[in-house]
């Protein structure tokens, strides 16, 4: 048991995986001696050596592509893309190869790789450093998309991702890399890749999110508790495939659904959950679904970033709105 930040939990999971499975290799830009620009791989190169932790050239497409080759050979590459804003170049390899190697070869070759990247805004980062494009990956059959929202879940989910026999895209909310600490059992216990987490039970409204904004949702729930509203807060955590059963059960129970994410609204992953509500949980729904998201705009540079990100207040407002329906 250790008190860890989210980024420390990521590092602990990587370390555990390197230890337990000789097929695991960590690779990416600056993941070696520098320990990654967010220090997620700090000390791993020193401990495990350059045969297990590889600094790559500045080649995102290549990093994904060689990971496919490594994985087809039974290695378990865990590749880091330095920021999600630079992950687009991997999409060709991820969609056209990683996601379908098993299917194309009827299981003869498989692709047990993990592609990690910090994502999201709120850290006053330069241009192209605040993107949130999880929905794009969640649309690709054959991939898993996982987003932890606490140190414990980061540790357990990353271990599962690495142990999983299929390709997993793992997005780490950088705004909460160091925002808080949590006791993490470093016992190598993995968390399931097909379960949403109920972070707070409640009867009146289901607040569904993932990543850094789950924290704002929890805070909003506390505020709303003061106003007599009992919100249930859910962390989707594994967006692809996602645990619709748990989410829909909650919405059926509360009759109200607020979905919160950091990505632009249109065709974001919130749409998928709302669609599922419209298909499966209409019965008993007492209010329209509300999505709390940025509008369809480019993430602004730091000075106006706060106008873009959904805030605790935005979540409260949405909850109040859906509570107004009876």
């Amino acid at each position, binding site marked *: 048991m250790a008190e860890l930040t989210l980024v420390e939990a990521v590092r602990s999971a990587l370390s555990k995986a390197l230890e337990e499975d000789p097929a695991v*290799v960590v690779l990416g830009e600056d993941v070696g001696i520098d320990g990654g620009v967010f220090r997620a791989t700090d000390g791993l190169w020193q401990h495990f050596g350059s045969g297990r932790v590889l600094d*790559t050239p500045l080649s995102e497409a290549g990093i*994904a592509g060689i990971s496919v*080759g490594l994985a087809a*050979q039974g290695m378990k590459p865990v590749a880091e893309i330095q920021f999600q804003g630079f992950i687009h170049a991997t999409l*060709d390899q991820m969609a056209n190869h990683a996601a379908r190697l*098993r299917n194309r070869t*009827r299981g003869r070759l498989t692709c047990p790789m993990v592609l990690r990247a910090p994502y999201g805004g709120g850290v006053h980062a330069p241009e192209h450093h605040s993107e949130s494009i999880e929905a794009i990956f969640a649309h690709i059959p054959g991939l898993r998309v996982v987003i932890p929202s606490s140190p414990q879940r980061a540790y357990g989910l990353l271990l599962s991702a690495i142990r999983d026999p299929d390709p997993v895209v793992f997005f780490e909310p950088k705004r909460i890399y160091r925002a808080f600490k949590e006791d993490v059992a470093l016992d190598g216990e993995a968390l399931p890749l097909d379960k949403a987490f109920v972070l707070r039970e409640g009867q009146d409204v289901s607040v569904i999110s993932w990543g850094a904004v789950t924290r704002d949702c929890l805070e909003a729930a506390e505020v709303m508790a003061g106003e007599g509203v009992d919100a249930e807060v859910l962390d989707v955590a594994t967006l692809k495939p996602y645990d619709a059963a748990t989410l829909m059960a909650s919405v059926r129970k509360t009759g109200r659904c607020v979905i919160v994410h950091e990505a632009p609204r249109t065709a974001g992953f919130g749409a998928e959950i709302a669609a599922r509500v419209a298909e499966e949980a209409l019965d008993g729904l007492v209010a329209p679904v509300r999505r709390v998201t940025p509008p369809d705009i480019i993430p602004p540079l730091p000075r106006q970033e706060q106008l873009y990100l959904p805030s605790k207040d935005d979540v409260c407002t949405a909850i109040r709105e859906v509570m107004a329906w009876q």
Partner: protein
Amino acid sequence: MPLLGRELIGMSDDRMQAAVDAAEFRIPFKRYLSADGTLADAAPGFASDRSELVRLYEGMLRTRAFDTEAIALQRTGRLGTYASSLGQEAVAIGVAAAMRPEDVLVPSFREHGAQIWRGVRMEELFLYWGGDERGSDFSGPREDFPVCVPVGTQYCHGVGVGLAFSLRHEDRCSVVVGGDGSTSRGDFHEAMNMAGVWKVPAVFVVNNNQWAISVPRAAQTAAQTLAQKAIGAGIPGEQVDGCDVIAVRDAVERALDRGRRGEGATLIECLTYRLSDHTTSDDATRYREDAEVSSHWPEEPTVRLRTLLTEAHGWSRDEEEALRKEINGAVKAASDAYLQIDPQPATAIVDYTYAELPTDLKAVRDQLAER
């Protein structure tokens, strides 16, 4: 040895001058068997071994027969769009003959010859081109990659495979094949560069058949050779006559030796010519002259090897006929076998998406199973 940039910048001032050469490079060209069937003195040892030559010849003829049957199947609606390797058989066979079984082939979509040589069954290849995924679940070289359609993406796979070998200290190499067009893709360069940095045991073979669909070689790149694209990655590049199966096999063997010795990757450009249309969906008369095509027939790889066999090794008309008969029989048998293969169950469209099916897909599968 070229000077390194870093050495230069620290160069003492008395040696300072307005212009020196930071580096020099040359791209060798090799051909052992000329278009008229003459063998050069410098040819490698196996080029005097009759049985080796017959093996190579047989491989090329089998490839051609396979292509012929595939096109016949396509024309009669029993195969999908198909890419023939007519005129380029020496690349596939030279590559495959140089490799060891435990090496891994990462092909593009025009190397049926290499796949067959390495043990992929012809009916499996028909099955793939016939639109059935099971064709990529082939027997024989179980670790080889399937055909790669997105041009150029395969190079990185080869680097990953080779990197796995070197990380595990295995005495194996990967061999990637692509076309002239594929050398314009960024991933080709990223792959070569990474292979250079890590000295990955990988061999990159470019089948420069002078065309990428309708785009001629000269409109694909201003580089005088494609082999010189290795220079930017700091790996050796070499050009061979790709219609000379001896030169191809020799170059790939030497490159594999380098890889196994821990000296890293190599790029080999094979100069060939696409005698056929791009695929069965293509009509090359729209963009190239028949005269150009005809002018390349005299260089094609099977005739020149047969001439050598005939003139230097007494290859007889009977042997030729027997060989062709055997090959045609085998291809026909494979074609018949292919046409007999039962369809996949409907559930197969779902079953291989993940190792374990997620809930939603399980439900889909159950529905499909009921059909």
